[in-house]
């Protein structure tokens, strides 16, 4: 009944279905108990001369990238796909389906690889029983396998498709109550069957690596959901930005605060012009053409304004260096919303002199309707500005926070707490 054939990498065998005669791969070890024909749905007992146990015709093969006979490296161990089981479940009113692939390794035995909505996971039975936990409680802790998991969901899984060699004798429609707990990228499941309880340890698999390992070209729809045990893995660029942002946001902010504290400038001249219409001037020395000079004017205008013409001249040559104008306006009052003010009694003008030297600033009221209140003029040199450092600190902080925000949103989607989960 058995005829062998060779491939480049492995010696495979096949057996003819005892119901329809179709050739079926025989790849699993002795512990596999059943063989299900993918042509006629016959369930055969591998330990009893492939005796026909049941038959399920017209089963629809579930979606998935793999097929029986494919081999690939998982965790450094060669595994071969020997069986396929389709699963349906209803969780919180929504229907879900996924495909379990029975894996066989001559050295490591049997395990499962699961394809679920574009995600791949690997699971194996474990003898690490839960140390805590019992009945399912959302997000309740469950200690097992040396890890602290959080309970994720509870559902009843039903078999919807069978194919190939499996380690037990299944029946279509068999149901198992499952409690899943997660500690990404790992998961722990308690499968409560009619006669026994099994414990499984799961690991999230890198889809691209796994498909490549099994020689499958990834032409499948990308995952649109966050899997229960999918780890949050941001891109290298965003990770680098966040790390740098975490370091440089406080550095830039501290430097900005230092400049703010010491960068107000050194007062080098001040004058009060009692009659702005008569005008006045102030002379001051400037020792650098690279540092910022600030001319501050203060006038106690109230519900009025004042406008001034100003002229900067080189005291040595009397040559006009710059002409400019500016003013102050200040209004205050009270209305139904309370007291209000608008404008300021202070204005500042900043410039860099073309060369070191002695300068004169002349000021005169520039509009006949200007207020006549006295004007105070103050000149400071070596004024610093902080806007660039605060902007940098803000950007760095944004990069730092954005990674945290993405991670939080990822977690929210994992737990189904994000309304945009269906995006």
């Amino acid at each position, binding site marked *: 009944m058995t005829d062998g054939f060779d491939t480049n990498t492995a010696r495979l065998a096949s057996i003819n279905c005892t119901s329809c005669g179709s050739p079926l791969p025989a790849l699993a070890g002795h512990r596999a108990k059943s063989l299900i024909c993918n042509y006629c749905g016959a369930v055969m007992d591998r330990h009893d001369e492939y005796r026909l146990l049941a038959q399920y015709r017209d089963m629809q093969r579930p979606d998935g990238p793999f097929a029986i006979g494919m081999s690939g490296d998982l965790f450094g161990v060669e595994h071969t796909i020997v069986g396929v089981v389709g699963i349906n479940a209803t969780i919180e009113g929504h229907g879900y389906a996924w495909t379990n692939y029975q894996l066989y390794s001559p050295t490591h035995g049997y395990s499962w690889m699961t394809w679920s909505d574009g995600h791949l996971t690997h699971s194996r039975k474990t003898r690490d029983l839960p140390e805590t936990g019992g009945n399912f409680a959302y997000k309740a802790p469950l200690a097992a396998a040396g890890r602290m998991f959080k309970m994720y969901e509870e559902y009843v899984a039903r078999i919807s498709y069978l194919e190939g060699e499996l380690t037990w004798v299944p029946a279509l429609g068999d149901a198992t109550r499952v409690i899943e707990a997660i500690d990404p990228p790992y998961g722990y499941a308690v499968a409560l069957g009619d006669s026994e309880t099994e414990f499984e340890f799961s690991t999230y698999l890198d889809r691209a690596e796994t498909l490549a390992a099994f020689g499958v070209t990834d032409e499948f729809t990308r995952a649109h959901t966050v899997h229960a045990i999918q780890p949050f893995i941001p891109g*290298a*660029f965003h*990770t*680098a*930005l966040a*790390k*740098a*942002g975490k*370091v*440089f946001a406080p*550095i*830039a902010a501290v*430097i*900005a605060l230092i*400049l703010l504290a010491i*960068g107000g400038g050194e007062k080098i001249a001040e004058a009060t012009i009692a009659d702005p219409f*008569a*005008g*006045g*001037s102030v002379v001051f020395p400037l020792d650098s053409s*690279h*540092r*910022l000079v600030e001319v501050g004017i203060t006038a106690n205008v109230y519900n009025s304004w004042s406008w001034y*013409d*100003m*002229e*900067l*001249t080189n005291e040595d040559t*009397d*040559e*006009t*260096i*710059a*002409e*400019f*104008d*500016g003013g102050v306006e200040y209004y205050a009052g009270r209305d139904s919303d309370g007291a209000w003010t608008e404008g300021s009694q202070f204005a500042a*003008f*900043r*410039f*860099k*002199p*073309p060369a070191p030297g002695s300068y*004169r600033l*002349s*000021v*005169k009221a520039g509009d006949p309707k200007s207020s006549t209140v006295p004007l105070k003029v103050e000149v400071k040199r070596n*004024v*610093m*500005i*902080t*806007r*660039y*450092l605060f*902007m*940098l600190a803000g950007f*760095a902080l944004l990069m730092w926070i954005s990674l945290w925000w993405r991670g939080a949103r990822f977690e929210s989607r994992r737990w189904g707490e994000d309304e945009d989960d269906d995006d």
Partner: protein
Amino acid sequence: MTRIVFVIFALATAGATYAGVYGIGGEDKQIAKSIRSGSSGRVGYIGGVK
């Protein structure tokens, strides 16, 4: 990647500090434009208020 981004942030911090200390870009446009355009030989149009 991380090293490159750290270098970029370090350069940006140094640049922002330099620009802050030397007030680069902090000049009033009106005054800066007037200084650039020069005096054309004028002498104190409100110089009479000395």
